[in-house]
């Protein structure tokens, strides 16, 4: 049987018949090949060794599908891997669910599947189960993807907001705003878009190294939607402690700052797809930073602030570059739509 001759997805590709079979066997399986998936069972059977299991899911609706530094496929794999990794899990396997609009070009689908396969391989996870649905034109915008992921716990590692104490350090593994502004500027057709590159990356490897080789990591979260502002606000309100951040220590690329200024966005609220915020006890911070800086995804790692005691409502404060003070809040109102 040859690969599908159709250049575009038809409704029948999701109908469960011959075309569905063709799509799965010829377009999807070869790109994601692994023993579990190849069985095409109704469920995947996984062997794992830890006592507890981590489980997460996320859906991806980014527009445009292809952006500088990534695409919806890479995003769908990295996003779920990162959700597992920051929770202190070693990512094991993902599911992949595609909802495709009738008329979607096979060329684009192949490109996305290539990217999914490659990203999964680079991050040492298998796509072990999946589903494909098609909907009539207009039912979705081109393609939506859901991935769920499972991971096993790393021995001796237990992260939680309840572990935070005043004087703990707040660390980020690199520059902020890259993903959101890359996608937004591409969408708006801004001239400087080519300079901007999404930071979309799987953090499983780096975080695994950190958790296995340093003590004192108390909590981690990936700073995705709502950006650094949302992540810090969640950490502060969840731990009932204040956080104090120094603006001068936050890594920001000048081209990204320029794009944020032009579009009128507060860069602290812009989504990232390859950045985590870690809360680390002070005596471990230097080791933590050292490991990060030796890894390609952590070269610009910076200690941006610290946890402090709170007497009233937990607050995140920013010491601005000029020495002024202001608060950082959970972003509200118009989040940038369809950024991930």
């Amino acid at each position, binding site marked *: 049987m040859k690969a599908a001759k159709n250049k575009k997805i038809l409704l029948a590709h999701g109908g469960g018949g011959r075309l569905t079979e063709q799509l799965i066997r010829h377009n999807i399986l070869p790109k994601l090949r692994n023993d579990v998936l190849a069985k095409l069972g109704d469920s995947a059977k996984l062997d794992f060794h830890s006592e507890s299991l981590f489980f997460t899911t996320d859906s991806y609706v980014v527009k445009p599908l292809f952006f500088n530094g990534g695409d919806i496929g890479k995003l769908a794999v990295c996003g779920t891997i990162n959700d597992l990794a920051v929770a202190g899990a070693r990512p094991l396997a993902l599911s992949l669910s595609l909802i495709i609009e009738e008329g979607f070009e096979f060329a684009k689908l192949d490109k996305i599947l290539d990217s999914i396969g490659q990203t999964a391989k680079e991050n040492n996870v298998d796509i072990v189960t999946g589903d494909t649905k098609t909907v009539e034109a207009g039912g979705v915008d081109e393609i939506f993807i859901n991935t769920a992921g499972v991971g096993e716990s790393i021995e001796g590692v237990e992260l939680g907001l309840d572990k935070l104490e005043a004087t703990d350090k707040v660390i980020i593994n690199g520059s902020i705003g890259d993903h959101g502004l890359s996608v937004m500027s591409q969408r*708006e057709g801004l001239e400087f878009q080519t300079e901007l590159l999404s930071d979309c990356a799987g953090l499983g490897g780096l975080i695994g190294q950190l958790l296995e080789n340093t003590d004192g990591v108390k909590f981690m979260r990936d700073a995705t939607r709502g950006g650094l502002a949302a992540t810090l606000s969640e950490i502060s309100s969840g731990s009932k402690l204040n956080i104090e951040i120094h603006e001068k220590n936050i890594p920001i690329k000048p081209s990204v700052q320029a794009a944020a200024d032009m579009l009128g966005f507060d860069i602290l609220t812009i989504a990232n797809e390859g950045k985590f915020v870690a809360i680390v006890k002070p005596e471990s911070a230097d080791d933590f930073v050292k490991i990060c800086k030796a890894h390609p995804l952590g070269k610009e790692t910076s200690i941006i602030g610290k946890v402090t005691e709170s007497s009233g409502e937990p*607050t995140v404060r920013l010491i601005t570059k*000029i020495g002024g003070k202001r608060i950082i809040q959970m972003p509200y*109102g118009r989040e940038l739509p369809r950024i991930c």
Partner: protein
Amino acid sequence: MLERIYKAQQIIDKACKQLGRKINIMEVCGTHTVSIFRNGIRSILPANLKLLSGPGCPVCVTHQGYIDTMLELAKREDFLIATYGDMIRVPGENGSLESMQTNAQIKVVLSSEDALELAKDNPDKKVVFIAVGFETTTPATAVVIDEASQQNIANFFILSNHKLVVPAMRALLSEKNNKIDAFLCPGHVSVITGSDIFSEIVEDFSRPCVVAGFEPIQIIEGIAEICKQLAEEKAELKSIYNAVVTEKGNAAAQRMICECFEPSAGYWRGLGKIDKSTYQLKEKYSQFDAFKHFGITDVPGKERSGCRCGEVLCGLIEPPECKLFGTSCTPDEPIGPCMVSSEGACAAWYKYNRKESDESS
């Protein structure tokens, strides 16, 4: 940079101490407002120096009558409303453009050019561009009016509420708030108009006017220059944004404005009707004037109940003094435009300063 800031701070502290009274400096530009809050500039100034956010945010100064007209047009059949993003969330009595979006044709545009393109792409629709903004955005509207005229685009209209900043400053000082000691004048308006437009404020009202850019250092040095003048009992026009602003401004942009528009009387939120304060399309371009073409009379409109945006804009109250602030009026569900626009005084206060003011009160 920190040295320059420290030096400016010393000048400010010394002047404020010498003056020994409350000093009110008003900025009349939303970009200044945002930069002041975002950089925590208020927190490094002496207690007797107060920064007031004046009528400098285009969405905020737009009177309710205009908002109501915009919402009414959006309901009409065959109309397509093209607007800058912030305007879609300004509410009238029965919702905003955003809440109407499901049953009306509303398109957010990033430029006036995009609005004209919409008209070309939708010949069966009457495309109305919500033309708001100060002297900075007026030339861009003028350019598309010129294009529409040359290309004979019959379905393109603008609902002009382009504003002139100086008449509002005059109205403020002469009628609403004579406690303003000086103005921090907007850099980007001045790029177009030239800094000379503010000389009448200095001459007629003896208030220092300092044109500054939007970087925190430029704002702080602008405030320092103002404080120095006040302490020396001087009132001068000074630009500390000389790299970009000239005395005479951008002649080509001014010509574009003059070609299409003339200043006429217009309404402002909080300030009422001000003579020669609003750009109206000239007679020869009246076919593009939505007010004229559709027989609309501009009216002041009725502010929403309890909303004190008008007083905020005049520097008469600070946002937390409004009972709605942070309770029934928040950025998620704004009642007044100063909470809608990211450049609005209420939104900036809420976002960057709210808890600090809670703690100090």
